[in-house]
C-alpha cells in the first residue's frame, strides 16, 4: 500500500539537466518544490580520470535505473529490431547526464525556429521534405533569448559572442542571432591543434570560432577553472569546473530552503483526478516502498524516452491512451540528432591531443542551417563542423588504420605506435527533421525491472538527413585537408537508435491537434502538467540541445510562478 505524503506545490520528476534548472526559479519565487531523482548524489571523488569506467563501462558507481529501461529500436515498422544497446545513453544521478556530458552549450540559430516559413519564403513550399511533420516553433529566437541569457549566467557558460544586439563580432559566431550581452566567461583556451584548424578555416574563407561550454574557463561562482586533464568526455569533473546542475542551479535552489531533493526515487506513474482531468501527483518507489507524492503541479523532467514512456504508462479514464494523449500526439514527431556520417582524418605529424576536452574546440557554422544558399541543392538545413582536443589511450589505440595497415599483429602495432596521436574525428551535428513515421511508443514485449514496458523507437534517417550527412562530410574533408591531413575516412550514416540527442515525442506548439504542450510547455489537455526537456523541441538545429532545453525549462518554470493561480488551481 502506498504511503501518502504531504502535498507540495510542485513536484519535479527528474533532477537532471532540465529539472535541475527549473527548480531554481520555482524555489526563488517562494514555491515549495520536491525534486524526485532516480539516482544518487555523486561527488568529485567519484570522478576519477578513468577511461574504462567512463567510456566503456557506463558509470557503474551510480544507480542505473536507466540501464533497466534501455529503449528498443527498429528502423521502421516492418524491419527487424536492432541489437539492444548494452547501456542507456543517459544516466541517473542528481544532475543527471549534465554530470558527464560534453557541456557544449549552444543557442540555436534563428533559422531553427522558422524552418517552414523561412524555407517557403526563400525556396518555395515544395522544398519541405515529403513526409516531414516539421512546423515553425510557436515563437522565434528573440522570445527565448532572455532565458538563454539567464541559464548562461546561472549555470555558467564560457564562450565568445558573435552578435551582441546586432553588432557582429567575427571572433564569435557571426551566424548567431542577437544576444543581449557577452558570455559570463571567456572561451576555453585554444590548443596547438585547434589553432591550426582555425587558421586552415580562415584560409578557406570560413569563419572559425571557439564554441560555448558550460565549463569554467576561469573561477566562476566560487568554483575553480577547468584543468584540461582529458577525462571530461563522459566523465564527471572532480573539481566542479563542469557546470552540471548538481554543481550550479540545484545547490542554489537548495539554499532557498524550499527545494527538497529525494534520491533513489523511481517514479512509475502520474496520477489523475478522474472528474477534473487534472494531475494530482506522482507515484514512486523508493527502497522497495511505494509512495504517493501529491502536488498542485507536476513538471515531468525526465529524458525524452522517459517523458514519453511516463505519459503512455499513466493511463486513466480521462486519458485512456496515456496522459495528455487524447489526440495521439505523445510519441509523435520524434527524431534523434544526426551526428553519424562522421569524418576522421590522419595527419603526418603528432597533434598532441592527449589532453583537453570535447568542449575545447573550434567550430564552423558556414555550412549549418540556412547560412548558405540552398537554391541549387536538393536538401534543406546543414551541419555544424566541430574539431576538438580529446584523446585517451584505449580510444587512441582503437583508431582506424585508414586502409594502410592490418587490424592486428606487428604491422598494426607499428602503425599505431606512429599514428595514435595523428588522427582526429570531427563532431558533425546536422539539421534533423521530424517525419510522419519516426515515432516512440511502448515496446509490446520488453519490460523494465518493475515489469513496465520500455520505450520503443521506430525511426530512421531520411533522404534529407542523408544528403546533409554527405555534404557536411565533404566540407569537413576540405577543412582537414587544408590543415594538412593526408587521409580522410567517412563514417556510415547509421540509424536513429537510442541517442543522447533525442527530440520530440511531446512537441511544443500552438495547435493542440499536432502538439502535446502549448507554447509555455504545459499540456494542451492537462493544464497543471508541464513537460521539460528536448522532448518538447520540434527542430534540432545543428547544435547540442542542452542549453535550449534548459532555457525552455527556465521559461516554463517562470511561467508557472507568474501564472500560479491559473495553472495550479484551474
Amino acid at each position, binding site marked *: 500500500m502506498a504511503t501518502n505524503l504531504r502535498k507540495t506545490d510542485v513536484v519535479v520528476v527528474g533532477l537532471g539537466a532540465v529539472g535541475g534548472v527549473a527548480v531554481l526559479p520555482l524555489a526563488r519565487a517562494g514555491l515549495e518544490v520536491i525534486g524526485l531523482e532516480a539516482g544518487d548524489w555523486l561527488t568529485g571523488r567519484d570522478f576519477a580520470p578513468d577511461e574504462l569506467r567512463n567510456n*566503456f563501462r557506463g558509470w557503474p558507481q551510480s544507480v542505473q535505473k536507466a540501464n533497466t529501461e534501455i529503449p528498443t529500436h527498429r528502423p521502421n515498422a516492418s524491419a527487424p529490431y536492432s541489437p539492444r544497446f548494452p547501456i542507456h545513453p543517459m544516466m541517473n544521478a542528481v544532475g543527471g547526464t549534465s554530470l558527464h556530458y560534453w557541456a557544449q552549450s549552444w543557442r540555436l540559430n534563428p533559422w531553427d525556429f522558422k524552418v517552414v516559413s523561412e524555407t517557403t519564403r526563400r525556396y518555395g513550399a515544395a522544398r519541405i521534405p515529403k513526409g516531414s511533420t516539421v512546423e515553425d516553433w510557436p515563437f522565434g529566437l528573440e522570445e527565448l533569448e532572455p532565458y538563454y541569457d539567464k541559464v548562461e549566467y546561472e549555470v555558467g557558460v564560457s564562450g565568445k559572442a558573435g552578435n551582441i544586439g546586432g553588432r557582429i563580432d567575427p571572433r564569435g559566431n557571426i551566424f548567431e542571432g542577437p544576444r543581449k550581452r557577452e558570455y559570463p566567461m571567456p572561451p576555453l583556451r585554444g590548443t596547438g591543434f585547434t589553432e591550426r584548424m582555425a587558421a586552415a578555416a580562415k584560409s578557406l574563407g570560413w569563419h572559425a570560432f571557439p564554441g560555448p561550454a558550460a565549463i569554467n574557463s576561469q573561477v566562476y561562482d566560487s568554483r575553480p577553472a577547468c584543468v584540461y586533464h582529458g577525462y571530461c568526455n563522459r566523465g564527471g569533473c572532480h573539481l566542479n569546473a563542469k557546470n552540471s546542475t548538481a554543481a550550479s542551479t540545484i545547490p542554489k535552489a537548495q539554499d532557498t530552503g524550499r527545494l527538497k531533493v529525494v534520491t533513489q526515487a523511481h517514479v512509475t506513474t502520474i496520477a489523475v483526478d478522474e472528474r477534473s482531468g487534472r494531475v494530482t501527483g506522482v507515484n514512486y518507489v523508493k527502497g522497495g516502498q511505494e509512495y504517493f507524492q501529491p502536488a498542485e503541479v507536476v513538471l515531468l523532467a525526465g529524458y525524452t524516452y522517459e517523458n514519453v514512456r511516463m505519459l503512455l504508462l499513466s493511463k486513466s479514464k480521462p486519458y485512456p491512451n496515456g496522459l495528455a494523449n487524447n489526440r495521439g500526439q505523445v510519441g509523435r514527431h520524434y527524431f534523434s540528432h544526426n551526428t553519424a556520417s562522421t569524418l576522421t582524418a590522419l595527419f603526418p*605529424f603528432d597533434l598532441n591531443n592527449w589532453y583537453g576536452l570535447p568542449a575545447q574546440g573550434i567550430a564552423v557554422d558556414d555550412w549549418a542551417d540556412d547560412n548558405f544558399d540552398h537554391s541549387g541543392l536538393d536538401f534543406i538545413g546543414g551541419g555544424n563542423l566541430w574539431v576538438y582536443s580529446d584523446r585517451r*589511450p584505449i580510444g587512441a589505440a582503437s583508431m582506424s588504420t585508414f586502409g594502410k595497415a592490418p*587490424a*592486428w599483429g606487428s604491422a598494426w602495432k*607499428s602503425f599505431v605506435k606512429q599514428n595514435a*596521436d595523428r588522427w582526429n574525428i570531427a563532431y558533425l551535428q546536422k539539421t534533423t527533421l521530424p517525419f510522419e513515421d519516426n515515432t516512440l511508443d511502448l515496446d509490446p514485449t520488453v519490460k523494465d525491472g518493475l515489469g513496465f514496458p520500455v520505450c520503443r523507437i521506430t525511426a530512421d534517417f531520411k533522404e534529407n538527413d542523408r544528403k546533409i550527412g554527405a555534404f557536411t562530410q565533404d566540407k569537413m574533408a576540405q577543412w582537414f585537408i587544408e590543415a594538412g591531413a593526408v587521409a580522410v575516412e567517412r563514417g556510415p550514416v547509421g540509424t536513429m537508435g537510442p541517442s543522447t540527442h533525442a527530440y520530440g515525442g511531446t512537441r511544443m506548439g500552438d495547435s493542440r491537434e499536432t502538439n502535446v504542450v502549448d507554447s509555455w510547455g504545459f499540456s494542451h489537455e492537462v493544464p497543471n502538467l508541464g513537460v521539460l526537456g528536448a522532448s518538447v523541441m520540434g527542430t534540432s538545429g545543428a547544435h547540442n540541445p542542452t542549453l535550449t532545453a534548459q532555457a525552455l525549462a527556465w521559461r516554463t518554470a517562470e511561467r508557472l510562478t507568474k501564472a500560479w493561480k491559473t495553472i495550479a488551481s484551474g
Partner: protein
Amino acid sequence: MADEADDRKQEPRDRSRRELLKRFGMVGAASVVPGGAFVQTASTFAAEARTAAAPPREALETLTAAESDTLEAIVARLIPSDENGPGAAEARAAHYIDRALAGPLSSARRAYAAGLAALNAYAQTSKGGLFASLQPKDQDAVLSEMEKNAATGFTPNSSTFFNLLRAHTIQGTFCDPYYGGNANFVGWDLIGYPGVRISVAAQEQRMGVALKPNHKSAYDDSMFTKRGGGHGH
C-alpha cells in the same frame, strides 16, 4: 562438451604449455623473475627479447588454466612483442581479461568458454594442434581466418569472437594499470600517452611539445582512493 572429449585433450594441453614456455624462454627459469620487475624500454627490448623472461602469471580468477594458456597465446599474436617493444603478453592483457570476466565483463564469460573451445577445435582441424602449441605463422593463419569470418565451428561466427578478443586485448594493453593490464605502462609507452595528469598547462597542449611519460595511474591520486580525499578541493 562431453567429458570424454576433455579427457582426450589433457595431454596435448600439457604439451602446449611446455611449448609456450619454451618460446618465451621460460622453461627452468620462470620462477627466478621477481614480480613487477619487468621494466624495459622499447629500444632495448628487441635486443633482450630472447633472454628476458615474461613476467610470471598471476593467479586466475575466472578462466581455467587451459583457457588461460590459449588466451595468453592469442593476445601475444594480436599485439606481439617485436622490434617496437613489449606487446599484449607483457602488458598482461590476458590477466586484465581474466579479472574483468569476473566482474564488468561477466556477460562475456560464456562467449570466452565457447569461443576458446571453438578456436582450439579449429586449430586442431586446420593446423593439427591446439592453438598455443602452434608456430606463430600458423597461429596468425588461424586468427586471420577468424577475422575474415572464414573459420568454422563458432557461434554465432568466428569474426564476432575475434572482434571481442581484439577489443578486450586493446583494453588490457592500454587501460589504466589499476585494472591489471598495461603492466609497467608498456601500452601507454608504445603509443606515447604521457600518463594521467590531474592538471594540464597551456604549454602542454602545444604541437611539437613532447611530454615526458609520468607513469601515473588515476588511482595514484589519493583523492580517488582515500576517505575524505587528499586534494583539499
